[in-house]
């Protein structure tokens, strides 16, 4: 046992050294036109060695340490109470959620502009994650190119406004429907694939869209992107200092208040909030409808579902299309918020982050996905000071999550349909 531990501990220490020394200890310095490799200074070497020693000691005495940790009583003794009745819990849950939404409505008036801006971004990610949750969490189709539909939504609005002067409110449904159409057309040939194969094809599709946007310079402006995307208006009232379009009036003049740049930010936030709530409610409703049940049935046992007369293509296609629809929604809001979009906003990393949100939140669970979206968007902002290590922290958080809560932050609790007793 002890010898085994020693061997393992030595191995871990060596791995630590091998990984840490080249990363932290070696520097490339530019000297004129040459690049020279410089060794680390003493303090770095010492800390790397110290880290190796810590790893060694921990692995050597791992059993003892863990047993000590286990003997510490848990701060939250598992209560012996019965879990709350399902319907009671659901009622409390809906009250709490309504409360949170109402709070969220008034919250932006008391905080800084930066916070509201960040919150808008969070809401956009919530919309995206809720949409992807339908595809991945409910229907069980691994989609790695989800960002393509987001891009379609954003570019639809950007191009329509540039070439046809279409406003936000008109572009919103068009963008969503066009994204849904893309989802539908992609889904047709692709959905006979399963698992890994589907993931690869969707990944390819995401890249195709991005590269197309990058290279179709005459239409999309290529890597230069599309700028000057108008802000949304409130019943024809603009939020800028001066009215840009003929016939419109400005918000601050109509209400006789002083102009403030914050109005626009808050208004965008409120739009995003309303759309996110709308997305959540619609998808929640879908989950209780026959279509939602068939997504789950097909995910759980495809053969049984087919033997009951379910058309695999139709069911999967509906999930794919609906997921894409909400991505288009989010894309339109995003374009309006940024005022400028370029293909760089729609790289594969975005797809990966949205997927990470869904997995972290707990596949299929709406509340979990919302929580995860908040965490994943805000954490990197908080960790801005250690910007070099942001991805490292992000990765570490993911690994820890998968170890401790592989089922996600809030694992899905299915909304069961209860059959009331009948005589």
């Amino acid at each position, binding site marked *: 046992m002890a010898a085994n531990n020693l061997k393992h501990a030595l191995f871990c220490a060596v791995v630590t050294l091998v990984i840490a020394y080249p990363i932290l200890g070696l520097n490339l310095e530019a000297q004129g036109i040459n690049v020279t490799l410089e060794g680390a200074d003493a303090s770095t070497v010492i800390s790397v060695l110290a880290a190796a020693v810590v790893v060694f000691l921990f692995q050597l005495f791992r059993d003892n340490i863990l047993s000590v940790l286990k003997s510490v009583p848990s701060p939250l003794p598992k209560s012996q109470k019965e879990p709350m009745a399902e319907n009671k819990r659901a009622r409390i849950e809906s009250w709490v959620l309504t409360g949170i939404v109402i709070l969220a409505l008034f919250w932006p008036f008391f905080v800084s502009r930066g916070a509201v801006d960040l919150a808008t971004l969070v809401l956009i990610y919530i919309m995206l994650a809720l949409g992807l949750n339908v595809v991945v969490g409910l229907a069980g189709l691994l989609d790695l190119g989800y960002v393509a539909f987001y891009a379609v939504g954003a570019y639809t609005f950007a191009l329509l406004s540039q070439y046809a002067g279409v406003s936000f409110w008109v572009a919103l449904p068009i963008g969503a429907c066009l994204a849904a159409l893309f989802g539908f057309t992609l889904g047709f040939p692709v959905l006979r694939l399963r698992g890994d194969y589907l993931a690869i094809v969707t990944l390819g599709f995401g890249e195709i869209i991005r590269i197309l946007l990058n290279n179709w310079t005459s239409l999309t402006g290529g890597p230069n992107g599309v700028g000057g995307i108008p802000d949304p208006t409130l019943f024809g009232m603009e939020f800028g200092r001066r009215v840009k379009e003929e016939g419109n009036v400005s918000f601050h003049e109509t209400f006789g208040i002083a102009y403030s740049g914050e109005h626009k930010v808050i208004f965008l936030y409120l739009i995003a909030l309303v759309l996110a709530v709308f997305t959540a409610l619609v998808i929640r409703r*879908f989950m209780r409808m*026959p279509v939602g049940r*068939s997504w*789950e*049935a097909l995910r*759980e046992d495809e053969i*049984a579902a087919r033997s009951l*007369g379910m058309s695999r293509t139709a069911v999967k296609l509906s999930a794919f299309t609906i997921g894409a629809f909400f991505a288009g929604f989010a894309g339109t809001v995003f374009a309006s918020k940024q005022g400028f979009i370029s293909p760089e906003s729609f790289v594969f990393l975005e797809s990966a982050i949205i997927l990470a949100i869904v997995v972290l939140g707990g596949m299929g669970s709406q509340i979990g996905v919302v929580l995860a979206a908040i965490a994943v968007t805000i954490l990197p902002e908080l960790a801005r000071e250690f910007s070099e290590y942001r991805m490292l922290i992000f990765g570490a958080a993911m690994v820890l999550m998968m170890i401790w809560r592989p089922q996600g932050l809030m694992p899905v609790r299915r909304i069961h349909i209860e*059959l009331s007793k009948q005589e």
Partner: protein
Amino acid sequence: MLEVQNLSMRFGGLLAVDQVSLDVNEREIVSIIGPNGAGKTTVFNCMSGFYKPTGGKILFQGQEVQGKPDYKISRLGMVRTFQHVRLFNNMTVVENLLVAQHRHLNTNLLAGLLKTPDYRERERKSLDRAAYWLNRVGLMDMANREAGNLAYGQQRRLEIARCMVTEPKLLMLDEPAAGLNPAETKDLNQLIVSLKEDYCVSVVLIEHDMSLVMDISDRINVINQGRPLASGTPEEIRQNDDVIKAYLGEA
């Protein structure tokens, strides 16, 4: 109502089913028996559209169905169960029955989102139908449990109920008594007979439990090594020399 003519199924060099013919009339229970590996389940898979037969015809109510996709065959009214129970384990018992009725409930998405009266009405009806069948198979008390937590015998009955809510005309049961104790087998026996008597459903049955087969079958088809060996009433089969040889081996 069902006529299988010279059905053949070849997997590469293996002829799993060779020239099997079978017919089922209205309100009739027909069994397919045979030693293990005889090709019974393959015949089922061809009939239910999971395999595309390489030869022969399958006529269901005068319509050729061989090679049609499985879900279309199921919509025509030929529904099957599986040798190993295939329920949606994470769903409750009621939900399993609701999933099966998605066809009766298939209104457009908008009607469901807005909860139109028509939609509510359909939903209520499908719940009623589910409740009816739960009562029928004696699972009413389990209605809100997760299907995966049921005992094996209950899962078997739920699977049959799930087929019945789709209102089939022909029910294909693949070894429904496998893993059941004698008491449960007896219940199953009564259930299958009542499906035929009370709900006018024809049943095709694959089964190894001879007492069940002999009890309830109107006719029996014996398959051995993919080829039809004999067919006839239980009495005829019982006395058929070839069948006895196939089952007991030649002396």
